[in-house]
């Protein structure tokens, strides 16, 4: 055995969020020949966001399959392939179009194992989220729709490290997993991540920044807003803890409750619309199970109950901002 640590074990490389996702897919496809991909324009074109650029040249057209515009068909086909020994990964061009596959996801994929004990190992990748001036049909955060559907797992990473590790975990999971990739982060967020193989566990939240006075519970692109708000609060002498849910469903209640027990104050920050979003569930969990720890109301900072508008001033108004979080922090500081 070499006394020198192997270079690959420790090697880190600054990696964009989108490249972390591509890496996870590439490495998993190299590792397991039962993995293949279906989606629109994922072949020679490399995908609408270029996540699969270069894949078809390496893995061939049998494993990187360009599909007709037929979300319902290729979602159902993924179920059929998963039930007969494959591990399909499908790409919806935008998460908004996942509604076209709704029935196959909620009625076929989500309920198959429950009835038959036969597993459906498939991943549905979907670029979601706003901030790109893409209007009502290319900006939505549909995670809440699916966080109400037992049998599905809904994963939503907020960092390149988690994106790679969680996508690998999703591909190796024996259940249908919806993997929402916040497209605002694709080429804006980068960090040092291992070039080697690793996974991040599904249904495990992460305390991204420790604090003592209040907890911000968030996920996906709002993690960056939460961290910025926490830093601003620090300047005012308020110590804010930031919890990144990472998996939306099933939720990691333990990490949420432990943090609230410590800080006694909770803000739920999410980009989805406020009503019946993830924040509603997290607030209810805290109210039910951590009521005695609370020193103030659980606050939600989220998008208003409206479609996502196109025009820059409208979209800027629509999305939760650091200032909105600061208002919530100040409000809680009064308790």
């Amino acid at each position, binding site marked *: 055995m070499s006394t020198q640590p192997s270079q690959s074990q420790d090697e880190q490389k600054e990696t964009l969020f989108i490249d972390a996702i591509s890496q996870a897919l590439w490495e998993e496809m190299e590792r397991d020949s039962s993995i*293949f991909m279906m989606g629109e324009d994922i072949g020679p074109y490399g995908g609408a966001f270029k996540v699969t650029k270069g894949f078809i040249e390496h893995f061939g057209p*049998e*494993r990187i*399959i360009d*599909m*007709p515009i*037929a979300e*319902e*068909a*290729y*979602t*159902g*086909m*993924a*179920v*059929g*392939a*998963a*039930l*007969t*020994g*494959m591990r*399909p990964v499908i790409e919806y061009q935008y998460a908004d179009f996942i509604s076209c596959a709704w*029935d*196959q996801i909620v*009625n*076929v994929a989500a*309920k*198959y*194992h*429950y*009835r*038959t*004990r*036969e*597993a*459906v*190992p498939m991943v549905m990748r979907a670029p979601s989220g706003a901030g790109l001036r893409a209007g009502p049909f290319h900006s939505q955060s549909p995670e809440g729709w699916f966080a109400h559907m*037992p*049998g599905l*797992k809904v994963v939503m990473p907020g960092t390149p490290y988690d994106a790679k590790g969680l996508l690998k975990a999703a591909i190796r999971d*024996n*259940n249908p997993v919806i993997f929402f990739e916040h497209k605002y982060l694709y080429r804006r967020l980068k960090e040092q991540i291992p070039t080697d193989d690793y996974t991040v566990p599904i249904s495990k939240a992460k305390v991204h920044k420790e604090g003592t006075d209040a907890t911000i519970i968030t996920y996906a692109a709002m993690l960056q807003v939460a961290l910025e708000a926490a830093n601003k609060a620090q300047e005012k002498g308020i110590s804010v803890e930031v919890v990144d849910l990472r998996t939306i469903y099933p939720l990691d209640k333990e990490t949420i409750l432990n943090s609230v027990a410590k800080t006694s104050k909770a803000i739920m920050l999410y980009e989805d619309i406020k009503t019946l979003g993830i924040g509603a569930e997290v607030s209810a969990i805290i109210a039910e199970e951590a009521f005695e720890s609370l020193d103030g109301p659980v606050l939600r900072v989220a998008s208003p109950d409206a479609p996502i508008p196109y025009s820059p001033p409208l979209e800027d108004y629509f999305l939760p901002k650091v200032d909105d979080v600061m208002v919530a922090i100040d409000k809680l500081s009064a308790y």
Partner: protein
Amino acid sequence: MQVKPLELGAKELMDIYYLMRLGRAIEDRLNLLYKGGRLPGAIYLGTGQEAIEIGASYALEPGDVLAPTHRDMMSQLPRGITPREVFLQHYARADSLTHGKGEDNYQGDLKRGTFATVSMLPDFYPVAAGAALAFKLRREKQVAMAYCGEGATSVGDWHEAINAASVLNLPVVFVVINNGYAYSTPVYKEMKVANVADRACAYSIPGVIVDGNDVIECYQGAKKAVERAREGGGPTLIEAKTMRMRGHAGHDPATYVAKDIIDLWTKRDPIVRFENYLTERGLLDEDKKKEVIDHVNATVEDAVNYAEQSPYPEGKEATEDVYAA
């Protein structure tokens, strides 16, 4: 792999006859149990469709997969689903194939090559295409077959699945049982085409019409399509013209169907027709027929008793198996 011949021998013909009689007897008993309030839920019967239900899926071989709908219990009998399993499922017992989780005909077992369907139609057209894709990617010479009624051909999934299967040249056979009605809605309110099979040209695949009450024609039509798929020829659309001889579900007396239509189709009963065929070939006489029917009745009796004595699941099992390990 041992493959069934196109021209079936005496053993296979009698095998099919037994399965048709068994299917009819199971459904007759389910109807009685339902009317007597003995079943917790609904029933969806394919009575009158025995020829296509059994004839088409009989063309599959071990390793192939079948995707039936809620009305296609009988199609699963050639795959090895047993009468005990059918009644356990209807009685919602713990030992049923869906452990009390799924209703009436929504059972399956992939080890024997059948999917457990859902109510939304035809959701398993894409699923069957996906299984065919898996076979193709692994270079396995297996075939998938999906069933649905003509009512389901108005749904987007149907067209999406057939189009994708055609583009990818997948080994899948799409069977449409045109039984005249989508619940209460007659075919002329469902589509303008004269035949569902005419739609095949839109996907550049063969569209074949078979007499859905002639089990030999159903078997041979399916058999040719299955072997074509197995040899890399791609999908086929088969339309079986038949009649749903009962209501949509157990509660539905189907008063919207004129009596003379039922009378007409009663004369075309697929089991009687097949009995005539077998008799002409010297394979069946009154003694043999009685022997088959007695055996079928005893099998159904055993299955009903077995299911009735079988335990229900415990309430707390309602939350188990939501996720795979």
